[in-house]
């Protein structure tokens, strides 16, 4: 199977300063440069490192026409760059907007992965602040 080029793959374990944004209802006007305008919640770096410790790229054949059914928008710092990711609400996969590479986490971790994002997003709604 085709795998994204090595130069495109990133070591997500080294990412930090994870933030989730409340962009519901505003996705179609979302601008990467205006991240700070969205309510957000800080995510725990250690928790994200835990989930991303065994992430693998999705073969290209499985990403052509992949169906999205809702996603969370998050950002992180990696290699001195702010990276914006889409975290799918299903399937345990996420996509890096800058490289357009898809990654997926192990099946065994997906249930708690969804719940972690659900809880984090809920904290934005409850407290409505940036950490």
């Amino acid at each position, binding site marked *: 199977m085709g795998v994204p080029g090595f130069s495109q793959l990133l070591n997500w374990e080294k990412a930090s300063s994870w933030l989730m944004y409340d962009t519901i209802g505003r996705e179609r006007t979302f601008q990467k440069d205006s991240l700070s305008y969205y309510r957000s919640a800080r995510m725990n770096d250690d928790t994200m490192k835990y989930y991303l410790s065994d992430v693998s790229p999705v073969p290209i054949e499985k*990403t052509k026409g992949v169906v999205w059914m809702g996603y969370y928008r998050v950002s992180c710092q990696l290699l001195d760059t702010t990276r914006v990711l889409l975290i799918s609400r299903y399937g345990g996969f996420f996509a890096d907007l800058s490289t357009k590479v898809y990654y997926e986490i192990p099946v065994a971790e997906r*249930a708690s992965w969804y719940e972690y994002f659900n809880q984090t997003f809920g904290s934005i709604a409850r407290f409505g602040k940036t950490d």
Partner: protein
Amino acid sequence: MSHYTTKLIPVVFLCLCATCCVKDKRTISNAVGHTAIDSAQLYFESSVLGEGGPPNSQNYRAHQPRTVRWDLSRTVLLSNGQAIVAPVQFTHPLFITSDVTGNGSFSLNDITALIVMRDSSAQFHCSLVTYLPDSTAIVGVSTSSGIMLVEDWQGNSIRAPRRFVKQLNSISTSSTDGNDGNVETDVDVNIEVCNTIYGYNYSSDFPDDGESWSETSCNTYGLQQLGSDGSPGPRDLTGIFVRRIPIYTVQLAPPGNPIGNIADYFKCFTQSDNSDHQYTVTLAVEQPVTDSRQPWTWSSTGLGGSSAGTNPINVGHTWLIFSESTGIATTTRNVGFYPQSIVLPGSATAQGVLANDENMGYDISLTINVSSQQFFDMLNYTSQGNNAGYDYNLNSNNCTTFALDAMAAGGVAIPATIGTWTGGGQGLDPGDLGEDLRGMQLAGNMSQNTVSNPHPNVGTCN
């Protein structure tokens, strides 16, 4: 002037008494055959442990069982003279952190040491030193900065807690010997506390001509310099803690997944025909394109782009919101049906799985009042979504299909248009369903909403 609000957020609660108490000065002669360490131990056990008094009620650490590791003690030359340094070992594993430590925590066993030394009159002094490296010291593997606590064995402060950093002060001197004139000094942090009062002068004759004013007063609290009582200072930490202090990071255990056990997820619902029990089911729809029947679309944001490569398709979503109200309490559960893995138009089937959709936004929703029997018939249908072998299919059993079939199981029929899409696919879809709901003639037990309101899960039970 530095402004630091040093706040300790310990795993072990840390609250220090500000009393300054110079402890026992009993002189113990070195008996023949006794080493300096023996003498220090003898002094500590007879004078400090035996007569030191109860532990400070405000100091959690002082109440914990701990021992002095005299077997690991050593003689060290500190800034005020020779001292015996002995590690302190807490019986139970205790970890401590602070706001200057970053993400790390330290074992108290690694950062606590007993210091025993004699003054110029040969009198013994004893202090317990606790040192928390800050992020700078952690990165530099040094003891150059952080927080230093100097207490007696009972947990009373011998000197005020100290937040210190190392600072290079450049001295503008001509250099003839090759030195650059830089001097390394310890900088004690001064804490400034300001209070502001606000006032308003009101004149009854001219009520609109009031004058507002404020006053700010500040006090600066400087931490003590190293005094003459012989207690160690920051410069001595390198000699006290010679071994690299290990840092621990806390790995948060991942949260559980409540909907993994659907029976548990729904357990708070109670079936009753009493009039005080009201049941509603809401069909919530997020369309790929609001107000459009378009079944799905190439994403206009995110990864949208060329027709080749990684083209994302946003199909929207449909899910159910179950709610029971007893007049006293309300229980609400969101549930949607998804594939467990990536699906494509050309690879449309995957094991199904239920998910909590309380954070999804919708374009339109339809809420229906139902009987308890209808409600539980729908719950029962929904519960199969996690069953092994119960598959999600992008065409024949997608989220919209699932939600409408669940409602049909409870005797509620929702008219729905079958859509078609690229690749010969067809089936129920959020785009069409949303428009079907908009055009729907509402019965008396129905209500519609086209503004996405929060719909969190509420209600718990034992």
